């Protein structure tokens, strides 16, 4: 694994860029642990100071230092993305593997449900949920919900791999060795799909973070918890755009775009590593 990453770093520009971008964002998130400010405190810094030596990212109209606030926010936003990724991985893995391994009716039923979730417009459903849950809608609950709505793409992908594993010799051996379905899936099939899981995780994080940012900007999340979308929400509450407090919007947007592009590049380069065909082809393409 280490060698893989070293090779990727050394020879894949996309991966390097992805690592640098994501690394920057993660470093920012880690900085929040040494922040001199409490994330919820307002009016602890002078108002509307543009980016300067004293306040690198400036301050908000609510008297917060944007740099440290952004550190907290990106940490929470990342945590959300990771939690969604973990839960939806569990779901898509178990459903994808099961459907692929069992086949037949199990597969048909599971994939029908899967396709349903792919088609249904999720955003209105999430907004509805928010209005039902209100103050019970903690970020963890939102993450669980998002995960429950966001496993379907990847489950389909995993299923297709599992389908091909089903007829391999080692599966039959395992069946004869008396392993039950759960054991076969966990011990025999899981390792084969893990590489795919890894690259889809990054895409899934991109998706869920985008969703959270959007919901938060529209005020559909818990505003007590600083997040990147929440920052933009508050900036809108203070008309930061027309009031000329551009840094209040620019830095969160910039950082989140960095994260998006970073994760995306990582996913792409991972994918390339996993599927050498696309890499070979990329090289092949140079000659045309």
């Amino acid at each position, binding site marked *: 694994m280490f060698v893989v990453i070293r*090779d*990727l770093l*050394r*020879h*894949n520009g996309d991966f390097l860029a992805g690592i640098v971008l994501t690394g920057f964002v993660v470093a920012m998130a880690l900085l929040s642990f040494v922040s001199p400010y409490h994330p919820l405190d307002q009016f602890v810094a002078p108002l509307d100071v543009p980016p300067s030596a004293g306040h690198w990212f400036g301050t908000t109209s609510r008297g917060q230092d944007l740099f440290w606030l952004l550190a907290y926010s990106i940490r929470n936003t990342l945590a959300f993305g990771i939690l969604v990724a973990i839960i939806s991985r569990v779901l898509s893995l178990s459903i994808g593997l099961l459907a692929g391994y069992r086949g037949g009716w199990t597969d048909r039923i599971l994939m029908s449900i899967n396709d349903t979730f792919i088609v249904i417009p999720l955003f209105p459903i999430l907004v509805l949920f928010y209005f039902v849950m209100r103050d019970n809608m903690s970020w963890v609950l939102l993450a669980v919900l998002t995960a429950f709505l966001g496993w379907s793409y990847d489950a389909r992908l995993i299923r297709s791999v599992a389908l091909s594993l089903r007829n391999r010799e080692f599966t039959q051996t395992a069946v004869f060795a008396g392993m039950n379905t759960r054991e076969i899936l966990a011990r025999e099939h899981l390792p084969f799909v893990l590489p795919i899981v890894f690259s889809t995780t990054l895409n899934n994080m991109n998706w869920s973070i985008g969703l959270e940012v959007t919901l938060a900007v529209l005020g559909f999340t818990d505003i007590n918890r600083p997040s990147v979308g929440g920052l933009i929400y508050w900036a809108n509450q203070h008309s930061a755009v027309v009031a000329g407090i551009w840094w209040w919007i620019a830095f969160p947007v910039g950082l989140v775009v960095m994260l998006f592009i970073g994760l995306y590049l990582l996913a792409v380069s991972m994918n390339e590593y996993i599927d050498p065909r696309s*890499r*070979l082809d990329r*090289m*092949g*393409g*140079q*000659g*045309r």
Partner: protein
Amino acid sequence: MSAVPNTARLTTGRDTGPVVSARDLRAWYRLSMFGVVREVKAVDGVSFEIRSDEIYGLAGESSSGKSTLVKTIAGAIRPPLEIVGGEIAFNFMAGTDGLHRASGEVAGQVRWRHLSYVMQGSMSVLNPVRRVRASFADFAFRHMGLDRAGFEAAVVSHLARVNLEASVLDAYPHELSGGMRQRVTIALATICRPNFVIADEPTTALDVVVQKEVLGMFRGIQREMGSSVLFVTHDMGVHAHLTDRLGIMYAGRLVEEARTRDLFARPRHPYTRHLIESLPRIGDDKLRRGLEGSPPSLADPPDGCRFHPRCSFATERCRREVPAMTPVGLDHRVACFERDRVEASQ
């Protein structure tokens, strides 16, 4: 299938000059994976000729470079494959040096008119979303110089040669059986009556009965048209049945070439001998020896004769020097220092 050499056509008699000739052909794959450049010498110094109105067979195990050789001759050079050296000449393309160096215009005129191709993996060579009729039009219409109706009639009558009904023209490839698809491909490759047809493992995916039928048809059409064929397969049985002359490839090099009958009767190269001996024979219950070791990596081939690590005749010289193709009889060449010992030991 019987492995007795085909005796139906003992000689080709005439010698009207080669349709295709290749000299010292080198085609390598140059791969750069995460900074490490790897060279795979898939075709490394191959020379041979194909005469008119003959079926030239090319045999060898998979990854011996025969498919690469075919691609090189057909001008299907796509990175990372590169032609590093050598020459190819076609008698129907005077003044040019191989298809890969020809201009697009010239190549467009030559392809299918003079040189056509029956490809390996015939199941997937037809565009899955186009009806068979469209494929015929795409491939052959411009060469035939006929109007629509005339072309259609020509196609239908040509299809009849391979025992296909006109209705297949309206079918999609996936609606046809494997045998039918293969016959469509053969019809497609031969409709322009090309001087030279390359057939790369065209029957590999078919079951034995269908295979035999298709091969028979192929042979029939070839005779009728008098074109030259380069027929590639790893199946020695097919070669014995079909080809006039046969070249054996091992690890990117031609190791032996002879008339098929001669080759089967008196192989001079230990590898050829191994290939022939591993064919099942009726009434033969001798336990066949397997070949030890595995084919060498073409990225890092052994010095000297590339076969020496697996060769029971190998000497110190074999490890150092590369044996050249040396004539040992009429139309018979072999690249082995110990060829006499091999012959003697039979």
